[in-house]
C-alpha cells in the first residue's frame, strides 16, 4: 500500500529584506518513499499560537511580497512528480517591492496531491512546511525590545536538597522578531553560584516564549539549580542583550534547610521519647 515519506531542507529561514531586495532560497525535497508522489508548492501566512513556537494558519491578507520559483521548469503552485528516492531542488524567489517596515510570518509548503487513476481519489494526503520569517524595511539589524514578562521559582518551599526550577516568559515588545540572547546568573554572597545561557528562541512581536536554558548538547532544557544548595539568600539576574539598552531583571529567593531541620527535630523528639520512657 502506498506510503508518504518526504523530507524538506531547510525547515526555517530568517531574513531581512530591504526595499526592492530579491532573495532566493534553495529547498531540497526528497521522496524517501517507494512510490511516486504528485506534489505542489505554496506559501501561507501564520500567526503565533502559543508560547512554545506553535503556529496557527488563518485567512490572512496576502503580504505585498512577491513569491515565485526560479526553477525554469516549474511555477509556484504547479504540480510536479517526484519518483521514489528522487530529490528535487526548488528555488524560492522572494521580492520585496514595498518600503514598508513590517514582519511577515509564512510557511513554504510542499503539498501532496492524489496520485491515482481516478481524479476524485480518496487517499489520505500530507503537507510538509518550512517557515519563513521575514522583516522588511531599511534597517538591516533591527533592535529587539525584550523583557521578562513572567518569572516563577519552584517549588514554593525552597529546600537545600530539592532542585530549584526557574521558569517564566520573555515577551517581545518590539516591532520585529528576534532571538533571545541572554543569561541567567545566580549569585550567593555576591559571588556567582551558577550561570546559564538562555535558549535562543525566536520571539515574535506582541508574543512571548518560555524561558529555557541551553544544556551542553545545545538543547533547550528547563533552567534548574543543582542540589545541594547552601541555605541562605540567593540573588538572580536575567540579562537580555540585543535591546537598545542592556536589560536586567533582578530577583531573589531564600533557601532554608527544611528537610535537615525536620530530620534534626525528629531525632531530637525520638531521643526525648526514649529518655522519657526510660525514666
Amino acid at each position, binding site marked *: *500500500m*502506498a*506510503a*508518504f*515519506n518526504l*523530507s*524538506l*531542507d*531547510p*525547515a*526555517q*529561514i*530568517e*531574513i*531581512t*529584506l*530591504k526595499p*526592492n*531586495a*530579491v*532573495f532566493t532560497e534553495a529547498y531540497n525535497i526528497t521522496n*524517501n518513499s517507494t512510490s511516486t508522489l504528485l506534489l505542489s508548492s505554496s506559501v501561507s501566512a501564520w500567526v*503565533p499560537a502559543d508560547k*512554545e*513556537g506553535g*503556529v*496557527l*494558519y*488563518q485567512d490572512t491578507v496576502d503580504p505585498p511580497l512577491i513569491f515565485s520559483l*526560479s*526553477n*525554469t521548469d516549474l511555477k509556484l503552485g504547479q504540480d510536479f512528480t517526484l519518483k521514489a528516492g528522487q*530529490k*528535487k*531542488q526548488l*528555488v524560492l524567489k522572494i521580492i520585496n517591492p514595498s518600503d514598508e517596515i513590517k514582519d511577515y510570518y509564512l510557511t513554504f509548503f510542499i503539498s501532496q496531491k*492524489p496520485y491515482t487513476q481516478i481524479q476524485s481519489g*480518496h*487517499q*489520505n494526503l*500530507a*503537507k*510538509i*512546511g*518550512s*517557515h519563513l520569517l521575514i522583516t522588511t524595511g531599511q534597517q*538591516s*539589524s533591527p533592535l529587539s525590545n525584550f523583557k521578562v514578562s513572567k518569572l516563577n521559582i519552584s517549588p514554593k518551599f525552597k529546600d537545600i536538597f530539592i532542585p530549584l526550577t526557574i521558569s517564566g516568559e520573555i515577551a517581545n515588545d518590539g516591532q520585529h522578531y528576534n*532571538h533571545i540572547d541572554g543569561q541567567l546568573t545566580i549569585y550567593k554572597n555576591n559571588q556567582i553560584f551558577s550561570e546559564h545561557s538562555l*535558549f*535562543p528562541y*525566536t520571539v*515574535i512581536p506582541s508574543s512571548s516564549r*518560555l524561558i529555557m536554558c*541551553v544544556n*551542553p*548538547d*545545545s*538543547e*533547550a532544557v528547563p533552567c534548574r539549580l543543582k542540589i545541594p544548595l547552601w541555605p541562605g539568600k540567593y540573588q538572580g539576574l536575567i540579562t537580555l542583550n540585543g535591546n537598545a539598552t542592556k536589560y536586567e531583571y533582578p530577583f531573589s529567593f531564600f533557601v532554608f534547610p527544611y528537610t535537615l531541620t525536620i530530620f534534626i527535630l525528629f531525632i531530637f523528639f525520638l531521643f526525648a521519647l526514649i529518655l522519657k520512657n526510660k525514666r
Partner: protein
Amino acid sequence: MKSKFIIISSLLLLYLSTSLIHAQHFTSDSYIIDWGNFNLTSGRKTSVNYRLTDTVGQNAPGFSEGDSLRIKAGFQYIYDMSRVISFTIDKLNIDFGTLVPGIGVTDTNLLTVTTPSGRGYQIMAQENHPLWINSSNFIPNATCDLGDCTATLSSPWTSSSKYGFGYNVTGIGATAYFPGSTYFRPFADFSQNQESVIVASESKPVKDRQATVTYRVLVSPLQSAGNYENYITYTLVPRY
C-alpha cells in the same frame, strides 16, 4: 644537463608544495553549480573535560549582509546538526471494509516525524468532508458518548449507539490532545470552513517520533448502503 635537472627539481618542488583545492559540484534538474568552498571538517568533538563544535574551511559562515538583505546562514547560532524536517505516513488508503450497523470498525495510521535541531513540531489534520456518498448522504462526524466532542476537544467514545466517524491519536506528542486511547474527536471539516487542527505536537526536537492515529466508524441500522469516502490531510510544520 644541469639546467634540466634544476628545472625538473623546481617543478617537482612546486608540485609538492601545493595543496589540494577543495571544490564542490552540485547538480539538480535546473542547475549545475561549481562552488569553490567546502568545509574541510566540521562536527562535534568531546573529551573528558571539553566539548567542541567546529566548522573548518568555511569562507563565510554565520551572519551575511548585502546591500538589501540580511541572512543568518546555518552556522552555530545553535548547533544545527540537522536542518531537515521529514514526515512519514505508513499508508495512504484506509479501507474499513463492509460496515455492520452497531459495530464499530477501526483502522490505524502510523505517523513518523523527524525535526531539525532546536525545533519541535506540530501535526495538524483536516478532512475534506464527512465520509459520504454525496453531500446529502453521509456518515455524521462523531459526537462521542456524551455528545460533547468537537474538532478541538476529545472525549470518551466507547458506546455502540453513538454513531459517527472520529479518530484518536496516541503517542508522546498527542497526550495533550487525547488523554487516553478511548478519547476520540471528529476531524476538522474543510467543507464546513473549519481550519486544520493540531493532533500532536512537541516543543523539543525529535527523531523518528511516532504517533498512531486510530480511525473509528460506527453506523446506524438506518445508514444507506454505498461507498462512503473522504480524505484526511495531515500537515507537518516545525515550531518556529
